[in-house]
Protein backbone atom coordinates (compact mmCIF):
# COMPACT_ATOMS: atom_id res chain seq x y z
CA UNK A 1 0.00 0.00 0.00
CA UNK A 2 1.16 3.54 -0.66
CA UNK A 3 3.06 5.40 2.00
CA UNK A 4 3.35 9.09 2.69
CA UNK A 5 6.05 11.03 4.46
CA UNK A 6 4.64 12.92 7.41
CA UNK A 7 6.69 15.48 9.28
CA UNK A 8 5.60 16.18 12.83
CA UNK A 9 7.07 18.38 15.50
CA UNK A 10 6.10 16.65 18.72
CA UNK A 11 7.03 18.31 22.01
CA UNK A 12 9.59 20.39 20.15
CA UNK A 13 11.28 17.52 18.28
CA UNK A 14 10.79 17.24 14.55
CA UNK A 15 10.70 13.84 12.89
CA UNK A 16 9.58 12.47 9.56
CA UNK A 17 7.86 9.11 9.39
CA UNK A 18 6.68 7.13 6.41
CA UNK A 19 3.13 5.90 7.00
CA UNK A 20 0.12 4.43 5.27
CA UNK A 21 -2.54 7.13 4.89
CA UNK A 22 -4.93 5.05 6.98
CA UNK A 23 -2.66 5.21 10.02
CA UNK A 24 -4.28 7.17 12.81
CA UNK A 25 -2.30 9.91 14.52
CA UNK A 26 -2.60 8.11 17.85
CA UNK A 27 -0.97 5.00 16.37
CA UNK A 28 1.84 7.00 14.78
CA UNK A 29 2.54 8.65 18.14
CA UNK A 30 2.55 5.35 19.98
CA UNK A 31 4.11 2.99 17.44
CA UNK A 32 6.35 5.12 15.25
CA UNK A 33 7.43 7.72 17.79
CA UNK A 34 7.28 5.56 20.92
CA UNK A 35 5.15 8.10 22.78
CA UNK A 36 2.81 5.70 24.52
CA UNK A 37 1.50 8.24 27.03
CA UNK A 38 -1.37 9.04 24.68
CA UNK A 39 -4.00 6.36 25.21
CA UNK A 40 -6.63 4.81 22.96
CA UNK A 41 -10.09 4.12 24.32
CA UNK A 42 -12.99 4.25 21.93
CA UNK A 43 -11.53 5.18 18.54
CA UNK A 44 -14.55 7.24 17.66
CA UNK A 45 -13.91 10.57 19.29
CA UNK A 46 -16.11 10.08 22.34
CA UNK A 47 -13.86 9.30 25.31
CA UNK A 48 -11.07 11.85 24.88
CA UNK A 49 -8.29 9.64 26.19
CA UNK A 50 -6.32 10.21 22.95
CA UNK A 51 -6.47 14.03 23.20
CA UNK A 52 -3.31 15.88 22.12
CA UNK A 53 -2.65 19.51 21.23
CA UNK A 54 -2.24 20.53 17.59
CA UNK A 55 -0.91 24.05 17.24
CA UNK A 56 -2.12 24.68 20.80
CA UNK A 57 -5.64 23.31 20.27
CA UNK A 58 -6.92 20.02 21.63
CA UNK A 59 -7.85 17.42 19.06
CA UNK A 60 -8.69 13.73 19.04
CA UNK A 61 -5.73 11.75 17.73
CA UNK A 62 -8.00 8.73 17.06
CA UNK A 63 -10.22 10.57 14.59
CA UNK A 64 -7.28 12.15 12.79
CA UNK A 65 -5.13 10.47 10.16
CA UNK A 66 -1.46 11.34 10.65
CA UNK A 67 -1.33 12.55 7.03
CA UNK A 68 -3.88 15.23 7.98
CA UNK A 69 -1.47 16.88 10.40
CA UNK A 70 1.65 16.79 8.24
CA UNK A 71 3.66 19.86 9.22
CA UNK A 72 1.85 20.45 12.50
CA UNK A 73 3.20 21.27 15.91
CA UNK A 74 1.94 18.72 18.45
CA UNK A 75 2.11 18.38 22.20
CA UNK A 76 1.51 15.17 24.08
CA UNK A 77 1.52 14.33 27.76
CA UNK A 78 5.24 13.52 27.48
CA UNK A 79 5.84 17.19 26.73
CA UNK A 80 4.33 18.56 29.93
CA UNK A 81 7.11 18.04 32.48
CA UNK A 82 10.40 19.80 32.07
CA UNK A 83 13.02 17.26 33.01
CA UNK A 84 12.12 15.82 36.39
CA UNK A 85 9.98 18.82 37.27
CA UNK A 86 6.28 18.13 36.82
CA UNK A 87 4.02 20.62 35.10
CA UNK A 88 1.72 22.37 37.62
CA UNK A 89 -1.19 20.39 36.17
CA UNK A 90 0.57 17.08 36.74
CA UNK A 91 1.65 18.19 40.20
CA UNK A 92 -1.88 19.17 41.18
CA UNK A 93 -3.43 16.01 39.70
CA UNK A 94 -1.06 14.12 41.98
CA UNK A 95 -1.66 16.34 44.98
CA UNK A 96 -5.46 16.52 44.70
CA UNK A 97 -5.89 12.87 43.67
CA UNK A 98 -7.14 13.86 40.25
CA UNK A 99 -6.69 10.30 39.03
CA UNK A 100 -7.36 6.78 40.10
CA UNK A 101 -6.65 4.22 37.38
CA UNK A 102 -4.98 6.90 35.28
CA UNK A 103 -6.36 5.75 31.95
CA UNK A 104 -8.06 9.04 31.13
CA UNK A 105 -5.24 11.12 32.62
CA UNK A 106 -3.05 11.89 29.59
CA UNK A 107 -6.04 13.11 27.58
CA UNK A 108 -7.47 14.93 30.57
CA UNK A 109 -4.16 16.72 31.18
CA UNK A 110 -3.86 17.86 27.57
CA UNK A 111 -7.43 19.09 27.49
CA UNK A 112 -6.83 20.89 30.80
CA UNK A 113 -3.63 22.35 29.40
CA UNK A 114 -5.56 23.95 26.53
CA UNK A 115 -8.21 25.26 28.94
CA UNK A 116 -5.80 26.97 31.34
CA UNK A 117 -3.57 28.28 28.58
CA UNK A 118 -6.49 29.80 26.69
CA UNK A 119 -7.95 31.29 29.83
CA UNK A 120 -5.68 31.86 32.83
CA UNK A 121 -8.69 33.27 34.72
CA UNK A 122 -10.83 30.20 34.09
CA UNK A 123 -13.68 29.69 36.56
CA UNK A 124 -14.55 26.43 38.27
CA UNK A 125 -17.74 26.25 36.20
CA UNK A 126 -15.75 26.69 32.98
CA UNK A 127 -13.34 23.95 34.02
CA UNK A 128 -16.26 21.58 34.68
CA UNK A 129 -17.81 22.40 31.34
CA UNK A 130 -14.42 22.22 29.61
CA UNK A 131 -13.41 18.76 30.79
CA UNK A 132 -16.85 17.34 30.01
CA UNK A 133 -15.38 16.40 26.62
CA UNK A 134 -13.29 13.70 28.30
CA UNK A 135 -14.66 10.64 30.05
CA UNK A 136 -13.38 9.47 33.41
CA UNK A 137 -14.99 6.41 34.90
CA UNK A 138 -13.13 6.60 38.22
CA UNK A 139 -12.99 10.01 39.80
CA UNK A 140 -16.42 11.59 39.52
CA UNK A 141 -14.56 14.63 38.13
CA UNK A 142 -14.52 16.54 41.44
CA UNK A 143 -10.83 16.03 42.17
CA UNK A 144 -9.90 16.63 38.56
CA UNK A 145 -11.74 19.95 38.70
CA UNK A 146 -9.98 20.82 41.96
CA UNK A 147 -6.62 19.98 40.41
CA UNK A 148 -7.18 22.01 37.25
CA UNK A 149 -8.38 25.03 39.25
CA UNK A 150 -5.40 24.82 41.59
CA UNK A 151 -2.99 24.51 38.68
CA UNK A 152 -4.60 27.45 36.89
CA UNK A 153 -4.17 29.60 39.99
CA UNK A 154 -0.54 28.52 40.38
CA UNK A 155 0.27 29.10 36.73
CA UNK A 156 -1.33 32.52 36.83
CA UNK A 157 0.56 33.52 39.97
CA UNK A 158 3.76 32.13 38.45
CA UNK A 159 3.36 34.00 35.21
CA UNK A 160 2.80 37.33 36.95
CA UNK A 161 5.79 36.86 39.30
CA UNK A 162 8.28 35.62 36.77
CA UNK A 163 8.00 35.77 33.04
CA UNK A 164 8.57 32.76 30.86
CA UNK A 165 9.14 30.38 33.77
CA UNK A 166 6.30 28.18 32.63
CA UNK A 167 7.14 26.10 29.60
Amino acid at each position, binding site marked *: *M*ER*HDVTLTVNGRTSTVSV*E*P*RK*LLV*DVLREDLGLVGTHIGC*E*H*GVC*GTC*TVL*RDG*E*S*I*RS*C*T*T*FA*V*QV*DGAELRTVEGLASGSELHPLQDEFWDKQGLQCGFCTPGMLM*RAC*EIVEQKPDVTREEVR*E*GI*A*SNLCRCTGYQFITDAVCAAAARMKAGSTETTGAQA
Partner: protein
Amino acid sequence: MKPPPFHYAAPTSVAEAVALLGEHADDDARALAGGQSLVPLMNFRLAQPGYLIDLRRIEELTRIRTDGDVLSIGAMVRLSRAEHSPEVALGAPLLAEALGYVAHPPIRNSGTVGGSIAHADPAAELPAVALALDAELVVVGPQGARTIAAADFFVGPFTTAIGAGEILTEVRFPRRDGGQAFVEFARTHGNFALVGVASVIETDGDAVTRAAIALSGVAPVPVRAAAAERALTGTVPDDASIRAAVDAAVAGLSPSGDAHGSTETRTDIARSYLRRGIELALTRAQDRR
Protein backbone atom coordinates in the same frame (compact mmCIF):
# COMPACT_ATOMS: atom_id res chain seq x y z
CA MET B 1 -10.39 -1.60 14.75
CA LYS B 2 -8.42 0.15 12.03
CA PRO B 3 -9.70 1.80 8.86
CA PRO B 4 -9.42 -0.04 5.56
CA PRO B 5 -6.62 1.03 3.21
CA PHE B 6 -7.21 3.96 0.86
CA HIS B 7 -5.32 6.26 -1.44
CA TYR B 8 -4.81 9.81 -0.28
CA ALA B 9 -4.13 13.18 -1.88
CA ALA B 10 -4.16 16.72 -0.53
CA PRO B 11 -4.61 19.04 -3.52
CA THR B 12 -4.18 22.80 -3.23
CA SER B 13 -7.07 23.98 -5.43
CA VAL B 14 -10.76 23.28 -5.87
CA ALA B 15 -10.20 22.49 -9.56
CA GLU B 16 -7.59 19.89 -8.68
CA ALA B 17 -9.85 18.35 -6.00
CA VAL B 18 -12.75 18.10 -8.45
CA ALA B 19 -10.49 16.56 -11.09
CA LEU B 20 -9.27 13.95 -8.58
CA LEU B 21 -12.83 13.15 -7.55
CA GLY B 22 -13.70 12.53 -11.20
CA GLU B 23 -10.60 10.48 -11.97
CA HIS B 24 -11.12 8.20 -8.99
CA ALA B 25 -14.89 7.86 -9.10
CA ASP B 26 -14.50 4.09 -9.57
CA ASP B 27 -12.56 3.97 -6.31
CA ASP B 28 -15.46 5.63 -4.46
CA ALA B 29 -13.39 8.78 -3.99
CA ARG B 30 -14.60 11.10 -1.25
CA ALA B 31 -13.76 14.48 0.18
CA LEU B 32 -12.10 14.53 3.59
CA ALA B 33 -12.65 17.65 5.67
CA GLY B 34 -12.00 17.56 9.44
CA GLY B 35 -12.61 13.81 9.55
CA GLN B 36 -14.69 14.04 12.71
CA SER B 37 -17.54 12.07 11.18
CA LEU B 38 -15.75 10.25 8.39
CA VAL B 39 -12.80 8.86 10.39
CA PRO B 40 -14.99 7.26 13.10
CA LEU B 41 -17.10 5.70 10.33
CA MET B 42 -13.95 4.35 8.73
CA ASN B 43 -12.52 3.14 12.06
CA PHE B 44 -15.63 1.00 12.38
CA ARG B 45 -15.49 0.15 8.67
CA LEU B 46 -18.95 1.52 8.15
CA ALA B 47 -17.42 3.60 5.37
CA GLN B 48 -14.71 2.23 3.07
CA PRO B 49 -13.85 4.85 0.48
CA GLY B 50 -10.94 3.81 -1.74
CA TYR B 51 -9.66 7.34 -2.22
CA LEU B 52 -9.71 10.34 0.10
CA ILE B 53 -9.21 13.85 -1.17
CA ASP B 54 -8.16 15.98 1.78
CA LEU B 55 -9.36 19.56 1.30
CA ARG B 56 -7.19 21.03 4.07
CA ARG B 57 -4.60 22.63 1.80
CA ILE B 58 -7.15 24.56 -0.26
CA GLU B 59 -6.66 28.10 1.00
CA GLU B 60 -9.79 29.57 -0.62
CA LEU B 61 -12.02 27.18 1.36
CA THR B 62 -10.87 28.64 4.68
CA ARG B 63 -12.22 32.16 4.20
CA ILE B 64 -14.89 33.98 6.16
CA ARG B 65 -16.16 37.03 4.27
CA THR B 66 -18.98 39.53 4.47
CA ASP B 67 -20.27 40.92 1.17
CA GLY B 68 -22.98 43.46 1.88
CA ASP B 69 -25.74 41.48 3.50
CA VAL B 70 -24.27 38.05 3.01
CA LEU B 71 -21.89 36.18 5.30
CA SER B 72 -19.90 33.60 3.33
CA ILE B 73 -18.13 30.80 5.14
CA GLY B 74 -15.68 28.57 3.28
CA ALA B 75 -16.43 24.87 3.61
CA MET B 76 -13.13 24.20 5.41
CA VAL B 77 -13.57 26.82 8.12
CA ARG B 78 -13.24 24.91 11.37
CA LEU B 79 -16.26 24.88 13.65
CA SER B 80 -14.35 26.45 16.57
CA ARG B 81 -13.06 29.26 14.36
CA ALA B 82 -16.55 30.10 13.11
CA GLU B 83 -17.83 29.88 16.70
CA HIS B 84 -15.42 32.58 17.86
CA SER B 85 -15.44 34.76 14.75
CA PRO B 86 -16.71 38.33 15.30
CA GLU B 87 -17.90 38.33 11.68
CA VAL B 88 -20.11 35.30 12.32
CA ALA B 89 -21.42 36.78 15.59
CA LEU B 90 -22.48 39.86 13.65
CA GLY B 91 -23.68 38.31 10.39
CA ALA B 92 -25.36 35.14 11.67
CA PRO B 93 -25.76 35.11 15.46
CA LEU B 94 -27.94 32.00 15.16
CA LEU B 95 -25.01 30.11 13.69
CA ALA B 96 -22.61 31.34 16.36
CA GLU B 97 -25.00 30.19 19.09
CA ALA B 98 -25.66 26.80 17.47
CA LEU B 99 -21.94 26.06 17.09
CA GLY B 100 -21.60 25.93 20.87
CA TYR B 101 -23.87 22.89 20.80
CA VAL B 102 -21.93 20.92 18.18
CA ALA B 103 -20.01 18.20 20.04
CA HIS B 104 -17.19 19.35 22.36
CA PRO B 105 -14.33 21.77 21.68
CA PRO B 106 -11.74 19.10 20.71
CA ILE B 107 -14.14 17.94 17.97
CA ARG B 108 -14.94 21.51 16.93
CA ASN B 109 -11.21 22.24 16.67
CA SER B 110 -11.06 19.83 13.72
CA GLY B 111 -14.61 19.52 12.33
CA THR B 112 -15.62 22.01 9.64
CA VAL B 113 -18.72 23.99 8.71
CA GLY B 114 -18.79 22.36 5.26
CA GLY B 115 -18.24 18.87 6.68
CA SER B 116 -21.09 19.21 9.13
CA ILE B 117 -23.48 20.39 6.44
CA ALA B 118 -22.30 17.88 3.80
CA HIS B 119 -22.57 15.04 6.33
CA ALA B 120 -26.25 15.97 6.88
CA ASP B 121 -26.86 14.10 10.10
CA PRO B 122 -30.60 14.56 10.80
CA ALA B 123 -29.79 15.45 14.42
CA ALA B 124 -26.99 17.91 13.59
CA GLU B 125 -27.32 21.58 14.45
CA LEU B 126 -25.89 23.33 11.38
CA PRO B 127 -28.28 21.89 8.79
CA ALA B 128 -31.23 23.30 10.78
CA VAL B 129 -29.45 26.65 11.04
CA ALA B 130 -28.84 26.68 7.28
CA LEU B 131 -32.52 25.99 6.73
CA ALA B 132 -33.77 28.67 9.13
CA LEU B 133 -31.48 31.31 7.63
CA ASP B 134 -32.27 30.34 4.01
CA ALA B 135 -28.59 29.70 3.42
CA GLU B 136 -27.25 29.01 -0.06
CA LEU B 137 -24.85 26.15 -0.58
CA VAL B 138 -22.26 26.61 -3.30
CA VAL B 139 -20.99 23.40 -4.90
CA VAL B 140 -18.38 22.99 -7.62
CA GLY B 141 -18.15 20.06 -10.02
CA PRO B 142 -16.80 19.27 -13.47
CA GLN B 143 -19.49 21.54 -14.96
CA GLY B 144 -18.52 24.47 -12.76
CA ALA B 145 -20.24 26.07 -9.78
CA ARG B 146 -23.91 25.98 -8.87
CA THR B 147 -25.88 27.23 -5.90
CA ILE B 148 -28.43 25.16 -4.02
CA ALA B 149 -30.98 26.62 -1.60
CA ALA B 150 -30.91 25.01 1.84
CA ALA B 151 -34.57 24.04 1.35
CA ASP B 152 -33.51 21.80 -1.58
CA PHE B 153 -30.22 20.62 -0.13
CA PHE B 154 -31.08 18.03 2.53
CA VAL B 155 -32.72 15.14 0.74
CA GLY B 156 -32.53 12.36 3.33
CA PRO B 157 -30.56 11.16 6.34
CA PHE B 158 -26.86 11.68 5.49
CA THR B 159 -27.89 12.51 1.93
CA THR B 160 -27.66 15.89 0.21
CA ALA B 161 -28.09 17.39 -3.24
CA ILE B 162 -24.29 17.45 -3.71
CA GLY B 163 -23.86 15.45 -6.92
CA ALA B 164 -21.25 12.81 -7.74
CA GLY B 165 -17.99 14.57 -8.49
CA GLU B 166 -18.98 17.78 -6.73
CA ILE B 167 -17.67 19.38 -3.57
CA LEU B 168 -19.24 21.93 -1.31
CA THR B 169 -17.11 25.06 -1.32
CA GLU B 170 -19.00 27.74 0.55
CA VAL B 171 -22.08 28.41 2.64
CA ARG B 172 -23.75 31.80 2.23
CA PHE B 173 -25.89 33.13 5.04
CA PRO B 174 -28.04 36.17 4.24
CA ARG B 175 -28.16 38.64 7.09
CA ARG B 176 -31.48 38.68 8.93
CA ASP B 177 -32.72 41.40 11.19
CA GLY B 178 -34.70 40.54 14.26
CA GLY B 179 -34.07 38.02 16.99
CA GLN B 180 -32.26 34.73 16.49
CA ALA B 181 -32.06 31.85 18.91
CA PHE B 182 -30.80 28.29 18.93
CA VAL B 183 -31.98 25.98 21.71
CA GLU B 184 -31.67 22.24 22.02
CA PHE B 185 -32.31 19.29 24.27
CA ALA B 186 -29.60 16.65 24.39
CA ARG B 187 -29.02 13.90 26.94
CA THR B 188 -25.79 15.60 27.88
CA HIS B 189 -24.31 18.80 26.52
CA GLY B 190 -22.13 17.98 23.53
CA ASN B 191 -24.25 15.07 22.40
CA PHE B 192 -26.38 15.15 19.31
CA ALA B 193 -29.73 16.84 19.88
CA LEU B 194 -32.87 14.87 20.57
CA VAL B 195 -34.53 18.05 19.42
CA GLY B 196 -32.90 21.28 18.23
CA VAL B 197 -34.77 24.47 17.36
CA ALA B 198 -33.39 27.31 15.22
CA SER B 199 -35.57 30.44 15.23
CA VAL B 200 -35.32 33.74 13.40
CA ILE B 201 -38.12 36.18 14.18
CA GLU B 202 -38.44 39.69 12.80
CA THR B 203 -40.90 42.20 14.23
CA ASP B 204 -41.91 45.77 13.54
CA GLY B 205 -41.83 46.44 17.25
CA ASP B 206 -45.00 44.60 18.18
CA ALA B 207 -46.18 42.39 15.37
CA VAL B 208 -44.20 39.55 13.81
CA THR B 209 -43.31 40.45 10.23
CA ARG B 210 -41.41 37.27 9.43
CA ALA B 211 -40.70 34.01 11.20
CA ALA B 212 -38.35 31.22 10.15
CA ILE B 213 -38.14 28.22 12.44
CA ALA B 214 -36.32 24.97 11.72
CA LEU B 215 -36.06 21.77 13.75
CA SER B 216 -33.40 19.08 13.90
CA GLY B 217 -33.72 15.59 15.33
CA VAL B 218 -37.42 15.16 14.62
CA ALA B 219 -37.38 13.92 11.02
CA PRO B 220 -34.97 12.29 8.52
CA VAL B 221 -33.96 15.81 7.43
CA PRO B 222 -34.09 19.18 9.18
CA VAL B 223 -37.59 20.62 8.73
CA ARG B 224 -39.19 24.05 8.80
CA ALA B 225 -41.98 24.48 11.36
CA ALA B 226 -44.10 26.10 8.66
CA ALA B 227 -47.36 25.96 10.59
CA ALA B 228 -45.81 27.86 13.50
CA GLU B 229 -44.28 30.41 11.14
CA ARG B 230 -47.67 31.05 9.52
CA ALA B 231 -49.47 31.22 12.84
CA LEU B 232 -47.04 33.81 14.23
CA THR B 233 -46.68 36.06 11.22
CA GLY B 234 -48.83 39.18 11.43
CA THR B 235 -49.77 38.63 15.07
CA VAL B 236 -48.69 40.51 18.15
CA PRO B 237 -47.58 37.41 20.00
CA ASP B 238 -48.80 36.63 23.48
CA ASP B 239 -48.87 33.50 25.59
CA ALA B 240 -51.96 32.10 23.88
CA SER B 241 -50.85 32.77 20.31
CA ILE B 242 -47.39 31.29 20.94
CA ARG B 243 -49.03 28.21 22.41
CA ALA B 244 -51.30 27.94 19.37
CA ALA B 245 -48.35 28.30 17.00
CA VAL B 246 -46.39 25.61 18.82
CA ASP B 247 -49.38 23.25 18.85
CA ALA B 248 -49.86 23.78 15.13
CA ALA B 249 -46.22 22.92 14.44
CA VAL B 250 -46.20 19.87 16.70
CA ALA B 251 -49.37 18.50 15.10
CA GLY B 252 -47.38 18.01 11.90
CA LEU B 253 -44.55 16.08 13.54
CA SER B 254 -44.05 12.40 14.13
CA PRO B 255 -40.42 11.92 15.11
CA SER B 256 -39.33 8.31 15.01
CA GLY B 257 -38.50 6.87 18.41
CA ASP B 258 -35.35 5.03 19.39
CA ALA B 259 -33.42 4.03 22.51
CA HIS B 260 -32.86 7.69 23.35
CA GLY B 261 -36.49 8.76 23.24
CA SER B 262 -39.86 7.50 22.05
CA THR B 263 -42.02 9.33 19.53
CA GLU B 264 -44.10 10.75 22.39
CA THR B 265 -41.05 11.92 24.36
CA ARG B 266 -39.55 13.63 21.35
CA THR B 267 -42.84 15.28 20.48
CA ASP B 268 -43.15 16.58 24.03
CA ILE B 269 -39.60 17.89 23.98
CA ALA B 270 -40.22 19.51 20.60
CA ARG B 271 -43.27 21.25 22.07
CA SER B 272 -41.41 22.75 25.00
CA TYR B 273 -38.24 23.63 23.06
CA LEU B 274 -40.21 25.24 20.22
CA ARG B 275 -41.80 27.43 22.81
CA ARG B 276 -38.48 28.31 24.43
CA GLY B 277 -36.87 29.04 21.08
CA ILE B 278 -39.69 31.26 19.89
CA GLU B 279 -39.83 33.18 23.17
CA LEU B 280 -36.08 33.72 23.22
CA ALA B 281 -36.01 34.90 19.59
CA LEU B 282 -38.91 37.26 20.30
CA THR B 283 -37.21 38.71 23.36
CA ARG B 284 -34.06 39.25 21.34
CA ALA B 285 -36.03 40.85 18.50
CA GLN B 286 -37.47 43.31 20.98
CA ASP B 287 -34.07 43.96 22.58
CA ARG B 288 -32.64 44.88 19.19
CA ARG B 289 -35.12 47.66 18.66
